[in-house]
């Protein structure tokens, strides 16, 4: 599977750009295709940890810096060139799930040209599809 991480200004912009992945059904409202889309995911880097107090004791949690924008992941059997070539470099990265599971260092099939190597190495995506195991983009 190829996971395409996409960034838009907001969900409305994503819907406008990706009509094939959104469905409206009378009586049921609308939604993203639930077999292959993770909508409204967060992309972030971990900046540290902090202790928060809860009624059942302190809890250590990550502090995060979120990347701006509205993110989604679309999984496809193969690299989808139409998604890769969306305007405004909406496609941020395309990663090969099977290659990552196999331990291949070449699991990144595409990265937006404005992404630094450090960003690619440290950014995390949440949630991820069960069965994926990325050494960088996974939480």
């Amino acid at each position, binding site marked *: *599977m190829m996971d395409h991480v996409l960034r838009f200004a907001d969900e409305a912009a994503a819907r406008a750009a990706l009509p094939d992945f959104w*469905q409206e*059904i*009378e*009586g*049921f*409202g*609308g*939604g993203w*295709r*639930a*077999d*292959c889309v*993770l909508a409204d995911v967060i992309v972030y880097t971990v900046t540290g940890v902090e202790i*928060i107090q*809860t*009624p*059942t*004791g302190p*809890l*250590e*949690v990550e502090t995060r810096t979120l990347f701006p924008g509205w993110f989604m992941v679309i*999984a496809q*059997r193969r690299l989808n060139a139409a998604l890769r070539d969306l305007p405004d470099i909406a496609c941020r990265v395309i990663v090969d*799930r099977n290659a990552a599971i196999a331990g291949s260092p070449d699991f990144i099939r595409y990265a937006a040209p404005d992404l630094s190597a450090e960003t690619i190495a440290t950014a995390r995506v*949440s*949630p*991820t*599809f*069960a*069965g*994926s*195991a990325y050494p960088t983009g*996974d*939480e």
Partner: protein
Amino acid sequence: MIPRFRRQLLSTTVPPWVMAGAMLDLDFVGRRFWQSGVGTTPNIVTVSRASTRSVRSVDGTWWQVGPNEPGLSDRGLMAEEARTRQTFNSACAGASAGTPGVDPTGWNLSNELAAGISKTIVDVSVVNGLTMLHVRFHGTPSAPPIGFYPRVSNITPATTEGVVWTVSAHLALLAGSFTNVASISYRCNFIPATAGVIRNIIGLTSTLSPYEATNTAPAGTTGITSPFFDIYVTGPIDFTLGIAATQLEIGPIATSPIITTDGPSTRAMDIIGLLIAPPIVPAFSLLFVGTKNGVNNSVPVYFSNGAEANRIGIGVSAANIVTTSTKIGGVDVSTAGTAITAGARVKIAIAGQSADQVQSVNGAAVQSTASAWYAGGVINRTDIGHLLSIASTSHNGMIERIVMWPTRLPDATLRSLST
């Protein structure tokens, strides 16, 4: 290892297991599929799902199948909506036995451990295909009565009022007893409220079994804690819990375990269809056998043109009312409904032809409605276990068998089929 759909020898003769006169017989329990004019075939059912998923057999064993592989076992075909497990490391990765042993990565089983109480990781084993942690709590609390709160994840998801949450796990009491345990529950707490999603587990048995609880976030909620055990003791204790497949998800029921070493992790929806054109014109009959769980809208079998205006099939409402869920040219011409019980096996027989549409559920008297019928070629898509691709309309259950006939069977036959 349960095999996937396997190619079988094509045959022009009708196998004895195929129902009489059927043009299509999909026996998911027996993993055998037959189509008139083709013979025995494995390849007319398609599944689209971008994630792995867990599958369970009749004997209670779980295993994982890969993306786009059917959730098929001797119970039938699983069809579930997309869910995200909002906890970390349900696979218990990183745990090792010892004194005190090593907790699974991201867990804190020593959280707020009462003075005088010890925690020991006794073992890590695989039971029913699930990695199970054996954790022993023992000792004499120095200041009873007192509570302690072992955590099974470290994620605190944000949430808001009105969101329905379900916490679940497979649990067992492996050794010892709950003597001097005044209360023990598996739960999450809404933040900042003290209300939670709570399952009392004082009745745990030695058999690893699923437990779950559901609750709605109250006013003012900003988050929900990761799952933990709330254990309140009054004196010396010694018991060993078995813990596996911990899960916290948004939705009214616990779905199948989403087993990963990280998290949050999403099991995508099972989009199940047929490769062949829906054979429903000029007339057809259909039998569906399966089990629906939960309280959402469900669509066991659905023929359409990819939109809503022209469709026929079986619909089950959120209130568990079965109808033919039919629209012709955008006009709803469904039959009257029959109530079923969530979680119970159901047999539904429907049939249709020009100006005639009927259903019988679990042997009940046939319900009918007159309707226009399709011009040929309008219907070109079959969905099984869901309505198109919208997550909230999944069957969330098992599909045992789907059989179709090229004629409108008599009412008595339909009633017999659904019995």
